């Protein structure tokens, strides 16, 4: 943006909207600053992962270029190029879903900006430009990260096209694919906002955004599995006509002058898909533009069934926090998104492991290594325990209307604290222990029969221990404490988390495997008993602490001086 543009209303508004895309409205000033640092850390991580991909693919392509014929290379190239297009596409779709609360001018924009002497056209134009800049930032980062890989796979002995032309065609096709991903999300949101009855628009958009986030995360194993689809692509599989990244791989091929009927068909699908989302997205903007006043001034209704809550028998203050937690998770798109999005990561990781172990093939009756399958089914509880637990905790830690927490501050009582904090304990236990058991027990049962119960007891034991780890310093009523993300650097957190996860999952998986394969279940049951006793002792200690220490309503940076907390 030129200095002159920046000073004009359009420039000022665009900057305002651009900043708003990073603002979830739940952070204090310190929290917002910390969040920007987390984003920068993630971008750096993304570029590092791009370089890691080059390293991972270098060996594969060295072998392909050394092969006697160019056919294996040509097959692999199609699949890997599809992956190279799919990854930035996925990133752009993910960040667009994450900011989908700000895709269109909203009620605040309407109330604040419309009384000013600026046109509606300017507001909509600035919003679109801010969105384009935001998406552009991530598109650029994604493509910068992936370009070294494209250069590596495009140049070599069996290369079909000139490497430079290959990179240019990739950028055109892949950037178009990312624009398609962006506009598809905009179109879906636009349709919802413009055409849903006003009373339900808030709840419905929140639910659909959470569903989109979950679906996108669950798609990741399929995206990373694209390189395994080289044969299907070479054989012109009809199934891949349903995969948008493959459409844009077709565009890339056509741009490089390949006139194969399959590529032409893929390119046509890309053109039709892109045209459709452009029309729907622009149409939604146009509809909102024409009906701005009516669409924006909607009421936020709740279903009448929900409004009648059940009569409770437990402590009233505990019931109050329980119902407050449930209502917030039901209605807040951000909290729902965090819990569903992160949980989907765990489920995706588990799914990926099962798919790669050959479980589906085994279920179809084919002969597959039983050891591989056993390894997979005893390992999947751990990503589920780890990630679902973190998802629940992260969601509960994010505040909603932080300044409204005075009502909890004013009514805090030593006698009620444990019951109030129990809402957090219940939700984290559900996600970190009960759901993983419920998801893995049937799969383990199919493979190992009744001995799966012992393995599930082990899963529950680890789950309860993880609950205690997550609640170690927890003294917050859900959603009421200010939050500062990124108290440790992203790289440090990722490294620590991964190391811990690898150690625990390796040991845990080995014990579970022993419980399914070993001659006797007794040693495993002893381990389960030990785990349970430790978890119970930690729980008792935590609850005693809850009774003694006051609630926390303001998040703080970790102190340089770490107290020993001996008393």
């Amino acid at each position, binding site marked *: 943006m030129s200095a002159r543009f920046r000073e004009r209303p359009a420039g000022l508004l665009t900057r305002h909207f651009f900043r708003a895309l990073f603002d979830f409205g739940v952070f204090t000033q310190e929290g917002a600053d910390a969040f920007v640092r987390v984003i920068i850390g993630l971008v750096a991580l993304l570029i590092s992962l791009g370089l890691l991909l080059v390293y991972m693919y270098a060996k594969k392509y060295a072998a392909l270029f050394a092969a006697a014929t160019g056919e294996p290379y040509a097959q692999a190239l199609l699949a890997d190029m599809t992956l190279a297009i799919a990854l930035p596409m996925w990133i752009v779709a993910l960040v667009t879903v994450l900011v989908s609360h700000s895709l269109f001018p909203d009620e605040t924009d309407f109330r604040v900006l419309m009384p000013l002497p600026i046109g509606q056209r300017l507001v909509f134009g600035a919003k679109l430009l801010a969105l384009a800049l935001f998406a552009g930032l991530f598109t650029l980062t994604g493509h910068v990260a992936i370009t070294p890989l494209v250069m590596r796979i495009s140049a070599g002995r069996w290369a079909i096209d000139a490497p430079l032309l290959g990179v240019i065609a990739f950028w055109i096709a892949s950037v178009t694919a990312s624009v398609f991903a962006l506009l598809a999300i905009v179109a879906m949101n636009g349709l919802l906002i413009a055409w849903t009855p006003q009373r339900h628009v*808030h709840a419905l958009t929140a639910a659909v955004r959470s569903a989109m986030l979950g679906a996108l995360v669950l798609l990741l194993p399929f995206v990373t599995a694209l390189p395994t689809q080289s044969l299907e692509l070479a054989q012109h599989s009809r199934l891949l006509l349903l995969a948008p990244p493959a459409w844009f791989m077709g565009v890339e091929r056509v741009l490089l002058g390949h006139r194969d009927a399959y590529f032409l068909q893929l390119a046509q699908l890309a053109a039709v898909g892109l045209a459709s989302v452009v029309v729907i997205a622009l149409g939604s903007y146009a509809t909102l533009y024409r009906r701005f006043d009516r669409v924006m001034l*909607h*009421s*936020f*209704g*709740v*279903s*009448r069934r929900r*409004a009648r*809550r059940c*009569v*409770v028998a437990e402590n*009233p*203050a505990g*019931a*109050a926090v329980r*119902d*407050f937690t449930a*209502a*917030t998770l039901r*209605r*807040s798109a951000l909290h729902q998104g965090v819990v569903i999005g992160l949980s989907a990561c765990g489920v995706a990781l588990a799914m990926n492991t099962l798919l790669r172990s050959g479980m589906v093939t085994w279920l179809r009756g084919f002969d597959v290594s039983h050891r591989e399958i056993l390894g997979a089914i005893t390992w999947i509880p751990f990503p589920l325990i780890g990630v679902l637990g973190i998802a629940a905790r992260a969601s509960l830690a994010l505040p*909603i*209307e932080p*300044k*409204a927490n*005075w*009502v*909890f*501050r*004013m*009514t*805090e*009582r*030593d006698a*009620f604290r444990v019951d109030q904090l129990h809402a957090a304990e219940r939700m984290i236990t559900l996600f970190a222990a009960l759901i993983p058991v419920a998801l893995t027990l049937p799969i383990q049962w199919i493979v190992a029969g009744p001995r799966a119960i012992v393995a599930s007891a082990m899963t529950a034991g680890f789950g309860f221990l993880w609950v205690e780890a997550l609640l170690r310093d927890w003294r917050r009523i859900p959603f009421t404490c200010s939050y500062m993300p990124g108290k440790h650097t992203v790289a440090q957190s990722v490294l620590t988390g991964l190391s811990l996860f690898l150690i625990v999952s390796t040991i845990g998986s080995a014990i579970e495997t022993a419980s399914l394969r070993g001659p006797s279940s007794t040693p495993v049951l002893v381990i389960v008993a030990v785990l349970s006793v430790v978890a119970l002792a930690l729980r008792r200690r935590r609850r005693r602490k809850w009774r003694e220490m006051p609630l926390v309503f303001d998040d703080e940076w970790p102190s340089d001086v770490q107290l020993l907390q001996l008393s």
Partner: protein
Amino acid sequence: MLEVRALTKRYGALLAVDNISFTVNRGEVVGYLGPNGSGKSTTVNMVVGLLEPSSGSIALDGRSQDEDPIAYKRRIGYVPEEPYLYTHLTAAEYLTLVGRLRDMPQHRLDRDVPELLRLFLLWDSRYSTMAAYSKGMRQRVLLAAALLHNPDLLVLDEPFSGLDVNASLLFRALLGMFAADGRMILFSTHRFDMVEKVCSRAVILSAGRLAAEHRVPDERDGHSDSLETLFVRVTEQEDYRPVARQILDVMQHA
């Protein structure tokens, strides 16, 4: 009786409230006046137990706030200056939340919450979350929440902001009857007219110190401008007419 004695609050080097003492007797509505930054909200936050005083004491009917903070808070109803509430809840859900946090039995909430919604003219919006409410409607929810548990002391921070004429009249009558019932109201505001209409006494604050205490004359006395005059004098407010003139001059030169 609410007794505030030598109350002081320091934020590092800044002395926000300096050695303030006043009382609110049963049956009394005491206005708490002061210019912006005079320490009104800080005092209110200490009185309701959201802030801890640096020194001094607060006692309700002879029992110190420190002695049993929980029992003290149970006897207070509070309406904050800004309508800070959980806007993703409906008014009924919010009132139920507050009632349960105050340990009210469920059967009483089932009886009182719908009744209060009707009386505070919120019944028609009972299925809407408060995100769709106007400021006045949110203010009514906060007042209902403050009264729900039948408190002895009501602490109000600008409770009339955003209310329409009918709601203001209703609240004035309500506050008068609440005090007449032998309970206490501390009423922090910028509005002299409201203090004169609602309060029996006014405490005036300036730069964190108590500047004056003033018995509000009955409207029938014909001294309705005396509080404003006193306020300007004790808080050393300047004559604003030259400043107003300067503002107009700036506008006209633009």
